[in-house]
């Protein structure tokens, strides 16, 4: 019997796609927002990004070393988490806080749950929320340190106060206002969205439904087109809808499920923002829906062709 032939299960050909390539595409898609952030907020933004990314990669590598797991940093998912976290922070966060937050996101939210694919909540978002809660006292004020601005309050707060200083729609779209590093420039985020669509990393449904739901609800409740537009352009909705609500691991597996998930995100965001006047709607809504994901999956499973409905 010759043994030099490879014996294996079918199929014998595969797509050229890989997890690594997907992560790389997400990184590429985040670059415009990162660059815009550095332009808008200056060198400190670069420092925050570097701190988060390096910490993310190093902590995953160390974790794997310590628990003797196969090294996984090569899949770039840690880079994505670090980058995403950084883009959701404002530049007045201290670098050491970035390090703590990023390490928390990777070690506690991802690695302890078994690594890539096993975490139930999005590490970047959870990391951000953790920082909001942990460092609000550090900042000593009512406003959490990470969303406090270099120069002014966030547009959402200004909008809520009906302030004259509220930025115009164009400013909002280009991101020339206070906020987190990567969340303000909608133009850059849309470029990233286009890349993800082009590379078929995600489908359009989740971002469009998420943003659309918030828009429609604002339109209905405020009756102002202007206001509804401003609301979707501000406050991290684009980055959340395009990059975080579309996270594979923490959203339902079927398209149907993803659509329900996105609708839920939009709804919760609106409720938090409109009724609670709390600007952090996006992160919390995605986190809440992450937790609901297993339940959404239960009732959005596909019906097999010719099979009776599951369950």
């Amino acid at each position, binding site marked *: *019997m*010759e*043994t030099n*032939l*490879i*014996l*294996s*299960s*079918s*199929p*014998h*050909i*595969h*797509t050229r*796609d*890989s*997890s690594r*390539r*997907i992560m790389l595409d997400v990184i590429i898609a985040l670059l415009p927002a990162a660059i815009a952030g550095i332009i808008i907020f200056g060198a400190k933004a670069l420092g925050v990004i570097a701190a988060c990314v390096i910490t993310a990669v190093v902590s995953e590598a160390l974790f794997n070393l310590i628990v003797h797991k196969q090294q*996984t940093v090569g*899949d770039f*998912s840690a880079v994505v988490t670090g980058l995403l976290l950084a883009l959701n922070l404002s530049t007045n966060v201290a670098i050491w806080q970035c390090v703590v937050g990023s390490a928390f996101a990777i070690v506690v939210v991802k690695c302890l749950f078994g*690594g*890539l*694919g*096993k975490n139930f909540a999005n590490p970047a978002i959870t990391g951000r929320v953790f920082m909001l809660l942990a460092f609000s006292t550090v900042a000593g004020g009512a406003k959490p340190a990470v969303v406090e601005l270099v120069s002014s309050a966030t547009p959402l707060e200004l909008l809520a106060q009906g302030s004259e200083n509220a930025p115009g729609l164009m400013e909002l779209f280009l991101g020339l206002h206070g906020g987190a590093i990567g969340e303000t420039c909608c133009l850059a985020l849309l470029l990233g969205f286009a890349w993800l669509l082009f590379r078929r990393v995600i489908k359009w449904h989740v971002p469009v439904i998420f943003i659309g739901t918030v828009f429609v609800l604002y339109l209905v409740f405020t009756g102002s087109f202007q206001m509804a537009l401003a609301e979707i352009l501000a406050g991290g909705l684009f980055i959340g809808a395009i990059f975080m609500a579309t996270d*594979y*691991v*923490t959203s*339902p*597996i*079927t*398209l149907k499920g*993803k659509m329900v998930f996105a609708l839920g995100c939009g709804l919760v965001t609106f409720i938090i923002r409109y009724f609670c006047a709390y600007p952090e709607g996006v992160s919390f809504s995605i986190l809440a829906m992450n937790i609901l994901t297993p339940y959404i999956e239960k009732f959005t*499973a*596909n*019906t*097999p*062709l*010719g*099979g*009776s*409905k*599951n*369950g």
Partner: protein
Amino acid sequence: MNFKKSISSLKLPHYKSTAAKASVRVAPPSEVLLPMNMHSGQAAEPVVAVGDYVRVGQLIAREEGRNSSPVYATISGTVAAIEPYESEPGRKTQAILIKGDGKMEVDPSVQPPEIHDLDSFLAAVRQSGIVGLGGAAFPLWAKLDAIRKGPIKTVLINGAECEPFITSDHRTMVEHSDLVVKGVALLKEYLHSEEFILGIENNKPDAIAEMQRVFADDPAVVVKPLKSVYPQGAKQVLLYNAAGLVVGEGQRLASLGYIIINVTSLAKMAEYIETGMPLVSRCLTVDGSAIKEPKNLEVPIGTRISYLVEACGGLKEEAGKVIFGGPMMGKTAYSMEQPIVKATNAIVVMNRKDAAALEPSACIHCGRCVANCPLGLNPTAYAKALEIDDKMERYALLDKEKVSMCMECGCCSYVCPAHRPLVENNREAKRFAKKVKTELQEQEKEKEGGK
């Protein structure tokens, strides 16, 4: 009924470089090895002894039971051995080795069968030794026999040939369109089928044109061009796309008055009825990155792979993997000296680079496997189920997720960016679920018996 608008399918690279190549009859090999398990049912039983002289078309092993099928000598010569053979690792059977005399003398028993009614027709098809030549290996007559349970109104003729590389059905339609016509006529006459749908992927325009030409005057036959996507030729997919029909879970296709026949099987059947020559040779595609001159060959069944490779100019690179059939569903050969069997429609030889295994990594829950399963199944659930320790719990999840429906088409594994071995998992899960199900049924029976 739960109709989906369209079945998800894949656009695979076609690699059909042999599509325009007429099939070549090669000089008979010096020996053939004929395994007794070339069909889905029980192994055939040899009726010749070592030392016997056999001629082409002579019965050398008889069928054993309903889903079994007779085996005929495919070259003339001497029976040199009847030996144990492993068709795939762990699947043991016997095989008859015939050393050829190069004469290809035809056996006098090869005479057109006498047919005058359904019974004699089915008996003849049974004797032809024809099984599903598209790879299924289910005896053709047993399929036609469904007529006894109820009328077969519609015959779906499968000419989709959706697997990459393979063009042997394509060549049948182009080169033997007369036999396809005769096959249809026979089914009309004896099964009284009223409608024939011939599904062909639109990457074979010449086959479509030829079939349309020969069936131009026959209103009962619809030549249906289909999109060239994988797995267009799979039962449920073809049924849905060509006939708009869904077979329910556990429902028999024949109970709806339908059967599906591979186009080459149909042509071979017509050939047998006409000439009396049973299934002794077939057309198959030899291709792949390691093959020097890919070709379609008409060769005796039982020919060793190495001989086919030589007939195609040999290897241009070291062989990494040899596949019986196409790259999506084919099984790997463990040796170049293994013979082709009745259902082998292709031999694909990949070079080392193409054959290299992809390292699996963690599932990233991207949902591509689910989105691309033609049947709407969820392979990630099967993988999860296999991790459950409790037997009944595992079975319950697998049963709920309908693992038994999985047709192992390979789409899920193909698209998985983490290179998870999904089909392998599915197969294991299926086997497990089937075992538990039988056990449960037996317990059920025992209980009833005890009452």
